[in-house]
Structures are given as structure tokens and as C-alpha cells.
């Protein structure tokens, strides 16, 4: 019985690692992505894999409250936020490409470097004697966090910055489920509520910036100095 449970855990760990790798690849794809609609869809796909990771950990570690987190991720980040943003893009008629400050190939190299940093930091949390899933997941989580930061600095378009902020938050969610199997239920609910409201608030702001400046290029917001 114990034997099979150990095997199960190993199997679960492999699935989680595989999906965490996909999440990381999608994050790096976002760094180089030039089209805003595709950027939104990559974010949705990334959130979908995150929900799957949460469900896998819930199944193999018998942590039922993670199912709720997985379901909420599906509803909020895979469905609601992308729909909201795609409608926003349509309404604002953004066709232009996103111009990153650092060019594509170089930003992939930087993202790779940040992933290394993620692994180094995650190493200090690794306790071989503690059974559990997601040693790799934590490294990926920290990498997502750092790459999200980098994307925010690297992009000038308002909506891309919001997406980067949300993918950074995805990193936090992954860290939460791999470190502690999620936060207490009520905290989880609070965080999802905040994410949804924040996405709406930022969406409205982006829309109003577009209306006022005829552009979503936030580098034009430079009147307030000193």
C-alpha cells in the first residue's frame, strides 16, 4: 500500500514537472510575443496548465481544497480575464505590434538567465527528507515571477504590462501550491477576487488612457516629473 502510494507520488511529481515546464515555456513565449491577442491567449493557456497542476497536486496529495483553487483559476484566469481583455482589444482597435525595449532574441537570453536564478533560489527551499511534490515547480514559480518583472519593464504598451503583472501573479500561485499546497481557503478566495477586480480596474484604466492619449504607449505618460 505504502509502496504504491510512493509510486503514485513519483508519477504525480512527473506530471507536475512536465506541466510546470510547459508553463515556463509559455512564459518565455510571452516575452517574445509581438501580437497582443496571441499574448492574451498564451496567458490563458498558461493559466490552464496552472489549474491542471493544482488539480494534479490535489489528487495525489489528497488536498481537496486545491480543487477549488483549480476551478477558480479556470473561471477567472482562463475564461473571464482573457474574454475581458480580448473585448477590450477589439473595442480599442489595437492592431499595431508591441515594441519591446530589448529585442526578441536578447530578451529570451535574459529570460533564460532569470530561470537559472529561479533554480538557485528554489534550491535553498529544497528539503530532500520531506515528501512532497513540485521541487521543480517552485523553481519555475520563482522564474515566472522574475520573468514577469522583466516583461513589465521591457514593454511599453499598457495592456501588455497588465498581462505581465498577471503572469507574475501566476508565478505566485504556482509557488503557493508547490510550497504549501495552497493558502487557506478564505485567503485563496480573497486573492482571486482581488485578481479579478484588479484586471477590471486596470482594463478600465487602459481604456481611458487609450481614449485620452490615442495610444496605449505608456512611455508617453511623462508629464509628472520631480
Amino acid at each position, binding site marked *: 500500500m505504502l509502496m504504491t502510494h510512493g509510486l503514485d507520488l513519483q508519477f504525480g511529481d512527473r506530471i507536475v514537472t512536465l506541466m510546470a515546464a510547459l508553463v515556463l515555456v509559455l512564459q518565455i513565449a510571452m516575452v517574445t510575443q509581438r501580437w497582443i491577442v496571441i499574448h492574451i491567449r498564451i496567458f490563458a493557456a498558461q493559466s490552464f496548465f496552472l489549474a491542471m497542476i493544482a488539480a494534479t497536486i490535489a489528487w495525489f496529495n489528497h488536498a481537496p481544497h486545491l480543487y477549488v483553487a483549480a476551478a477558480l483559476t479556470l473561471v477567472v484566469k482562463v475564461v473571464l480575464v482573457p474574454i475581458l481583455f480580448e473585448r477590450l482589444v477589439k473595442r480599442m482597435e489595437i492592431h499595431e505590434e508591441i515594441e519591446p525595449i530589448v529585442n526578441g532574441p536578447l530578451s529570451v537570453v535574459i529570460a533564460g538567465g532569470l530561470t537559472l536564478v529561479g533554480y538557485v533560489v528554489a534550491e535553498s527551499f529544497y528539503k530532500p527528507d520531506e515528501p512532497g511534490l513540485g521541487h521543480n515547480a517552485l523553481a519555475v514559480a520563482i522564474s515566472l515571477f522574475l520573468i514577469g518583472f522583466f516583461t*513589465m519593464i521591457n514593454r511599453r504598451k499598457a495592456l501588455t504590462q497588465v498581462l505581465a503583472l498577471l503572469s507574475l501573479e501566476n508565478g505566485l500561485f504556482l509557488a503557493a501550491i508547490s510550497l*504549501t499546497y495552497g493558502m487557506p481557503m478564505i485567503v485563496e478566495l*480573497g486573492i482571486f477576487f482581488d485578481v479579478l477586480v484588479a484586471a477590471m480596474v486596470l482594463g478600465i484604466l487602459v481604456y481611458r488612457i487609450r481614449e485620452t492619449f490615442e495610444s496605449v504607449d505608456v512611455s508617453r505618460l511623462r508629464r509628472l516629473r520631480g
Partner: protein
Amino acid sequence: MLLVALLLVPIATAAASFLARRRAAMEVANLVGFGAVFLMAVVLAARVLAAGTVSLANGFFYADALSALVILLTASVALVCSTYSIGYLRDDQQSGALGDDASGEQIAQLRMFYTLTPLFVFSMLFMAVANNLGVMWAAMEVTTLTSVFLVTFYGKVTSLEAAWKYAIIGGVGLSMALFGTLVTYYAGRGLTGSQALSGLNWSVLAQHAAQLDKTSMRLAFVLVLMGYGTKAGLAPMHTWKPDAYSEAPVPSAAILSSALLNCALYCLIRFYILTSRCLGAEYPGRLLLLFGLLSMGVSVPFVLVQKNYRRLLAYHTIDHAGIMVTALGLGGALGSLGLMLHMVFHTIAKSLLFLCAGNVSQHFRTDLFSKIKGGVMRAMPLTGVVFLMAMLAIVGMPPFSLFQSEFLIVRAAMVGGHILTGVLFVLFGTGVFAGALLHIGNLVLGPSGDAPVAPRRPWRNGSLLALASALVIIAFWVPAPLLELVRQAAHVVSGQ
């Protein structure tokens, strides 16, 4: 019961204002709501003084002297600012700053203000009574979300820019704070019952702080300091602050600069207590001193060369955030007492300054020193006198009470052997003193322009006078219960 009522009243106020059709109804709802909140805050403070701590729902809501003090300050600022905003917004409505009357724009703007302000206050109160660190974080995020549209209130190009900076920098900052909270939860995983909701309760973690995982707590504190430090406006994460404070309507700016600053510091203090009990006071203390002194230092040149008086006040708030964080970093009984006293005095003086700036800004229709030149004293005598007095108070001029608290902090530095900190503290303090006093002195007393004399303004001048009397009275006499509350709050911080 009291804790729940404290949270429900602002929500009810917001709902009433949202549903109200006439301006008068919104004004009454806000005044009554904030009046009730203030009374409940006083009762809560009295209960905490009598019983030590008040908690509810298995410790989900929890208030000790520190929370009671922050709640009392928040409620007082909210009451004064809501009184002030009645006069302020009526003036805006007359001058056409709120848009067209015929198309219903004005009433929509007023509805937004009178609905968002109670929600904003609700989130701050919720933060102060939440025992669970995750819930505390969520409430802090709500403070950003509810106040963003207060910053864009006037819908100008610059206010959109300010709101964007505020939302994005605040969002990134708070994501770090969430990471820190998460790592703290991880640090406590070895404790019994850590999987339950109470596993992230501050009161539980504080009791078992010595058993928390030390490596994790180190990382957690850095993340939380960066995160809530962003909300408190510590350098180098302070850049949103001058923009947001100068673009928001004045009553909202006053709440942001005093009550919200206290709330951000409150979160920092909670984590400081956990970290210092786990790792000793030296590790968090050094980091806090670094950020505190940096904030004080960064604000000096900006105060010295400032052209806009509302931005001057914002940089001044950054300086004071630095002062309070420095006091927290010095720690010990003396530093904590200095911190808590300074929090009380700063809240009164800074909200008063913003309200004065609002009067000047509405009368002269500009925020620039160069356009006003001087003569505030002639055009609006009461505002002029109070403005100058509050400025003297906040730069630490005796006999005003901020001198006492700043002196206590310098003394804590010297006694604790932080000579360099003490010297830098005095040096930066002098720079801000010179810059702020020179600018505001010129503004109030300088050669008088040709601006007309202001009419009487009962709502605004009433709230100015109330705050100004409070400032003068506490310079000489701090009521014994308030002093006791401050002492107990300092005791919570230092544990001594």
C-alpha cells in the same frame, strides 16, 4: 460584534451613497457613517485598553492596542476629511470642475466620490482587524483598487498618468508582499494546525515565532519590506506618491497620505514583530534603517527645489515614512514609543496640511508656487495661519509634539549606539526643515498678489479648526487614555 459593526457601517454608507439621487443625501450618509465609525473606533479603543485584546469568530477578527490605534487614527481622518469634502466638492461643483450639470455628469462624479471613499475606509479598517496575514494582504490590495478611481477623479491627462503609476507600482509591490506572506506561511508549516485557516493568523504565528523556519523568514521579511514599503512610499519605490497625491481630490489625498501610510506601516510592523521574534531584532532592524534613511535622504533635494506645493507635501510624507521606518528599525522600548507617538502626531499634522493646501489650491486655482507667489495670509487669513502652524509643527519645531517624537527617535538612536543613524537623521531633518519652511513661509507670508479675499467656508474651516485645535492641544497635553493606548501599542511592537 463591535468589530463586525465597524466593518458593516462603511459598507452601508457606500451603498446608501450609491443609491442616493441627491447630493444632500450622499453628504448626510457619509457624515453619519463616518461619525458612527469614529464613535465605534473610540469604543473599541476603550475596550482594548480594558481587556488587552478583542477578538471574534475564532480569532478571525483580532484587535490589540496597535490595531485599535491605527483604527482610531483612520476613523478620525475619515471623519474630518468627509466633513471637509462637503465644502470642497460643492466648490468644485460651482466652478465646473466636475463637468456639465445638465448631462448628470456632476451627480455621477459626486456619487463616485461618496461611494468609493467609504469603501476605501472599509478596506483600511478591515486590514487593521484581520488577524490572518493573507486576509490582511487582500484588504491592502482592495485599498489600491478602491482608491485608483479617486486618483483619476478629475479625469485629466495627468491624473490618468498618476493613476496608472499608482496601480501598476502598487500592484507589483503588493505581489511581492503576497510572496512574502506565502513564504511566511511556509515558514510556519511545522507548527501544529498550520493547515487550518488559523495557520496564517498573526496571533498564532507571533506566539510560536521562535519555531518558524529561519531561512524562510529572512526571505519573507525582505519581500514584505519591499512590498508594503511600496505602499508606504519608501524610496526607491516612492515614485507613485507625488503624482497620486497631487492629482487626487484633496480629501482623498489627505486620507492617502496619513491613514493609508499608517496602514502600510501597520502591515510592516506586524511582520517586523514576527521576524524580530524569530531572528532577533538586528536583521530586520538593519534593513529598515537602510530603507528609512534612504527615504529621508531622497526626499530632501525634492523638497528643497519643489515647484508645486502639493508635491512638496507628498515628498514630505515620504520623509516621514522614512522617519517612522527608521524608528521601527531602531526598535526597543524607546524607538517603538517614538514610532507610535510620531504616527499619531504625523496623522493629525499631515492631514491638516493637505486640507490647507486644498483651500489654497481651490482659491488660487493652481498648485504652483510661482503662480501664487504669496499672500495666502491676506486672501485667506485662517488657512494661512493654520497652514504655517501645521508646517512648523510637522518639521519638528518645539513646542509642537512632533518635536517630542522625533527627539525620542534620535535619542533611541544614540542610546542604541546607532550614532551614524542619529547624525544622518538630524542632517536630513534639517534639510527638509529648511526647504519646507522656506517654501510654505513664502507662500503664506510672501508679497501679496491681487487675488480676491476668500469668502467664508464653514465646512472646510470647521474641519481645519478641529484638526488645528487637536494639534495645539496635544502639543501640551496628550489625554491619558490616548497616551496609554500609544504606550500599549509600542509595547506590542517592542514586546518589552
